[in-house]
């Protein structure tokens, strides 16, 4: 039993890292632009399909393929922001952003269904099938590699946000959009870059998701609900919060599956959010009373 729990915890931490990678984009986009990107779930799936195409048709390893998929997704993100988000009127931007990004998600889902049908796909590589033996249990290599990738990319994101000029602009816009505008930050440019980064990072999350799960164009719905829970749990706009929330929620889910029953595991995942919000309405690391209506 105790080894099972230990394995559940290790699994949870490793999977949580990958979910943090997918959620980082969502929370960053929210932080800067105050919009909920409902399309994030299907963009993860799109990232998985891009890796799939590169692997099947060009024989490129999924990890190497990231050098292509991340820039592609970055440009896609900039495009979505430029075409759809920027034009929204400020009065009911929040509500409309949910609608617009949902419509974008539907279109992407439709395109994916058209090109790939609704069949389940998986990525293939030696590290997906083989496992490593550590501390008395077996772990597929992909979980370790995926976690490593998450750490590297989140680290890079951290350095970008805290050590570069554009990063300063983004963080300034998170803290106070009007203030940032007043001191001469080009908010449109920052928004486009943020959306691009948020979507670009998702390409990596999508690749690992595709390597650890079978996916079809429908997979986006389950993903977006989980990502939203993680992002709110961590505090909207906080990348570090998203990381901790992702690991915590998934560890709790995995441990519940072992000690109680797999049937109730997912319920716990969502239940954690409600319990936490009862005590902290802004999430674990949300700004206090931030953005009161």
């Amino acid at each position, binding site marked *: 039993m105790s080894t099972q729990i230990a394995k559940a915890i290790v699994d949870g931490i490793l999977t949580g890292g990958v979910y943090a990678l997918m959620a980082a984009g969502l929370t960053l986009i929210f932080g800067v632009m105050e919009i*909920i990107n409902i399309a994030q779930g299907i963009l993860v799936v799109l990232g998985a399909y891009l890796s799939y195409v590169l692997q099947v048709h060009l024989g490129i390893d999924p990890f190497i393929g990231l050098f292509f998929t991340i820039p592609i997704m970055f440009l896609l993100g900039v495009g979505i922001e430029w075409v759809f988000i920027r034009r929204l009127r400020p*009065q009911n931007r929040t*509500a409309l952003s*949910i609608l617009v990004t*949902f419509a974008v998600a539907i279109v992407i*889902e439709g395109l994916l269904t058209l090109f790939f049908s609704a069949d389940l796909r998986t990525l293939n590589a030696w590290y997906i099938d083989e496992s490593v033996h550590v501390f008395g249990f077996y772990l597929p290599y992909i979980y370790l590699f995926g976690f490593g990738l998450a750490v590297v990319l989140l680290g890079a994101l951290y350095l970008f946000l805290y050590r570069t000029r554009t990063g300063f602009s983004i963080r300034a816009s998170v803290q106070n959009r009007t203030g940032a505008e007043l001191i001469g930050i080009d908010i449109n440019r920052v928004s486009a870059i943020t959306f691009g980064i948020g979507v670009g990072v998702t390409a990596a999350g999508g690749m690992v998701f595709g390597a650890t799960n079978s996916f079809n*164009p429908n997979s986006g719905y389950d993903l977006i609900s989980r990502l939203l829970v993680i992002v709110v749990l961590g505090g909207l706009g906080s990348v570090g919060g998203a990381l901790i929330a992702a690991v915590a929620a998934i560890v709790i889910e995995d441990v519940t599956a072992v000690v109680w029953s797999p049937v109730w595991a997912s319920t716990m995942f*969502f239940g954690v959010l409600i319990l936490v919000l009862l005590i902290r309405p802004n999430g674990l690391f949300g700004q206090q009373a931030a953005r009161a209506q």
Partner: protein
Amino acid sequence: MSTPSAPSSEQNPGKSPSSASPTAQPVPGASARVLPSGRKAQWVVTGAALVVALAFPLIFSNPATTSVAMFTLLFVAASSAWNMFSGYSGYTALGQAVFFGSGAYFLANVANLWHMQGGVGVFALVPLAGLFAGLVAVPVGWISLRTRRHTFVVITIAFFFIFQLLAYNLTGLTNGSAGMQLPIPPWLAATYNTYFYFAALGVAIIAVALSWAVRRSRFGLELFAIRDDEDRARGLGVRTGQVKLSAFVLSAVVTGMCGAVYAYYLGSIYPPFAFEAIFDVTIALMGFFGGLGTVSGPVIGALILEPLQQYLNLQVTSGGVALILFGVLFLLVIRYLPQGIIPSSAEILRNVRARRAEQGGPRASQPDQPTVHVTGPEETPESTTLGEVGK
């Protein structure tokens, strides 16, 4: 604090007085007798719509048509109910399927418990199912309404998934994924749908009438005050907590009734049909599409979108193409009618009229003309939605 709220706070002072004054006066009921011509036209349209709705199954007897019509009416009701809370209060709820499913399972459980025979009698349970959904909404609303805006949206989604998972897991109440059977009505195939059509029509009428009544009432004004500025409304003495929860529960009651009719029509109920994520989004889209916060908006939205969706599903064999068409349609509507059909077309109409007046009249360069023209588009969506109550 942030830019999105800054322009809206610019808007608020502009629209609050203009919106408050026309609505604040009709509330005592004094001006209700003097119907302006626009309102008379609204009564005529409402009456005509009712006549058409009542006569519909007599004219179109094809079961496929009446089935689409019934679903459309259920969505008219559900979307109006959603709008009654989310549209009026500004709290976007994306978990209404919780109440839809609660109503559906309540009907299934009670009908089986009492060994009811299929027939018109089962419809008597529909209002009870609504009340049950309202009961469910009390704790759900109490917890989720502690949060605001985005967090509220996400917590309603979380509640939705919890309830869907509960429907799978609480096998004693729901029989899990094996589903529950409901009593089978003894009606002939030719008239089978008609019974459900009128049941759905009844729920739809209740929903729209409630939505209209709430909009005219002090309660409705309080909801709009919360939408515009919750903290200020609170400061002015609106019991925001109570008001929000009441609207949430009221909306859940109607949604639960829809779920009950739906379950009885299907004859069996399974967790993914009772608690459907698409339902959450669809009713919200219909509300947005027609016009958030208006009475007729969700009705129009449902009347257009539900038949369109059913048609696309039937005609376009490839699921991908149907999704793309649907998504592109939404993007176009958001682009060109960002307030929804009703307010945006009112805005466009007003602009056209102003332009025509400018061109046609010899005194086009009257000093007050330009000011009318400038303020018109700015305040149109809000002031029409708030001012012309019967809309």
